[in-house]
């Protein structure tokens, strides 16, 4: 066997033609397709599944028609009755609800002024439709409200000494439909975002006596 030692080898590399390019693209698409197929097969797509125990709002496909349904659970390290009573006096919620500028309560009726996207204000009137002390409060909007909404907040003992699990569920018809919902999200005035933040502020206030802020001055 002889080793070639002299002279550089110059063999012009053929440019890939259209055929080769298409063949490569086809092969890649085939591999990707196979990967999707085998993943889906392992995932059990197409099989019939009995319902699970997860809250309906976490389902991958909405079961609520034109209503948007959102909800959130927080654990608050305070006794159940205390958390319930704080919430029951709706005026307390002004301190934890970022987008609610005013709350007026009168009997079973409550009027909420809510800051909407781009400096708009929405007036919502709700009627308390169920009030089980220490357990649950439910409400729904009256026909004159600018948003059609209903919701409930539930209080249950957390395991051991962890306090109270507070679960809020809000169903509403997004003004402007799906597009309106996306716009509201952009302005961070969407109930899913606000609800989540408001429950966290409720937790802060009840657990620590104050709502955390990084503002260096009161006016800021």
């Amino acid at each position, binding site marked *: 066997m002889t080793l070639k030692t002299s002279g550089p080898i110059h063999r012009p590399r053929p440019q890939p033609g259209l055929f080769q390019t298409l063949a490569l693209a086809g092969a890649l698409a085939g591999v990707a397709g196979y990967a999707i197929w085998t993943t889906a097969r392992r995932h059990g797509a197409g099989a019939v599944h009995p319902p699970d125990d997860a809250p309906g709002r976490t389902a991958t496909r909405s079961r609520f028609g034109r209503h948007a349904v959102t909800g959130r659970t927080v*654990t608050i*390290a305070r006794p159940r009755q205390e958390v319930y009573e704080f919430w029951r006096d709706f005026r307390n919620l002004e301190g934890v609800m*970022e987008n609610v500028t005013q709350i007026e309560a009168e009997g079973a009726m409550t009027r909420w002024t809510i800051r909407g996207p781009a400096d708009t204000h929405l007036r919502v009137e709700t009627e308390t439709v169920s009030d089980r002390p220490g357990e649950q409060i439910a409400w729904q909007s009256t026909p004159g409200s600018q948003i059609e909404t209903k919701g409930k907040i539930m209080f249950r003992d957390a395991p051991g000494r*962890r306090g109270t699990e507070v679960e809020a569920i809000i169903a509403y018809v997004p003004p402007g439909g799906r597009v309106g919902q996306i716009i509201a999200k952009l302005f*961070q005035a969407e109930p899913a*975002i606000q609800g*989540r*933040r*408001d429950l*966290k*502020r409720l*937790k*802060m206030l009840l*657990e*620590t*006596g*104050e*709502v*955390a*802020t*990084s*503002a*260096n*001055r*009161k006016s800021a």
Partner: protein
Amino acid sequence: MRALTWQGKHDVRVETMPDPEIVNPRDAIIEVTSTAICGSDLHLYDGVIPGMLAGDILGHEFMGRVVDTGPGSTLQKGQRVVVPFTISCGSCFFCSHQQYAACDNSNPAEKQDVSEKLYGHATGGLFGYSHLTGGYPGGQAEYVRVPFSDVGPIVIPDGMEDDDVLFLSDILPTGWMAAANADIGPDDTVVVWGCGPVGLFAIQSALAMGAARVIGIDHYPNRLALARKLGAQVIDYTQTHVLEALMELSGGLGPDAVIDAVGMEAHGFAPDTVMDNFKQTVGVGADSGHALREALMAVRKGGRVSVPGVYGGFLDKFPLGALMEKGLQLRTGQTHVQKYTAELLRRIQEGELDTTFLISHRLPLEDAARGYDNFKTNQNDWTKVVLKPGLQV
């Protein structure tokens, strides 16, 4: 007041900002007497941590005198305090389990969305860091608003110098927790990647916890000399094959515990670092993890991996197989400072721990930008910079 503000990548400036005031009942206002630049400030300086806004006041290692208190504060005006960099409410699930850095109530609700998306759960609040961690104005300033001042700050007895206790705010407990997370036993060989301030304190802590042998890895001669002075053996990774050397130095068994005190901006001319740096540069947000990868390869079967180094996003080519097949344990996290401050203060008072040996420079606050520049570019000589707002320029 005067304060060091972040303006962008490699651009920090001392500017005049409004004085802080009491906002919440449990607040206190501290007049800063000493504050340090931390290695994790360099991650902000290098622009690799998301969620920074121009004008943010940096600094999370600080101490000073109490000048104002809210009605819910337990501090008294005139007291000298060191303030932990983690803001903790003291009463949530995590604080009551001494996991103070994971506090549920210190990161403002409207700032929690991003970390909840990024990490699955919102982080706690930190001073002088990203808006992911609350965007709290930091301690490289003349005054700081300290929330939950009845929980975090530790009162310093008269007669102790600032420099003796300043590092209780972060790097001393961070080095200590790094060693604690490595579960060190008396016959153990412990290896520490990175002999910066946290790495040096981790070495000191590992020895205090009774490790038989501690090995420090770096490439700056001065930092390696400091590690050696503490009693560690040293490896300069620019002149040694680290994995091979660690096998030999640990009797062929491999080190029992490894500590990554480097984090997301690992250097070293290795192919994975080049790739990580490329991705960081083009902004795909991958952390650089050469030190961690090497630590996972080095540690013995069934060994412990402790990660005090900061990571912010995703790490490619993480040797998960080594973790599983060797049956390793990995522990990490921001430091639960309040869990350790009382014990570490006692150890300082009794002379068991020296905290001043790594201070290389003391500068007036006005010189902070020069401090950042040198701490970044001249790491051999600038091991630790302490800023003193009271010092004259």
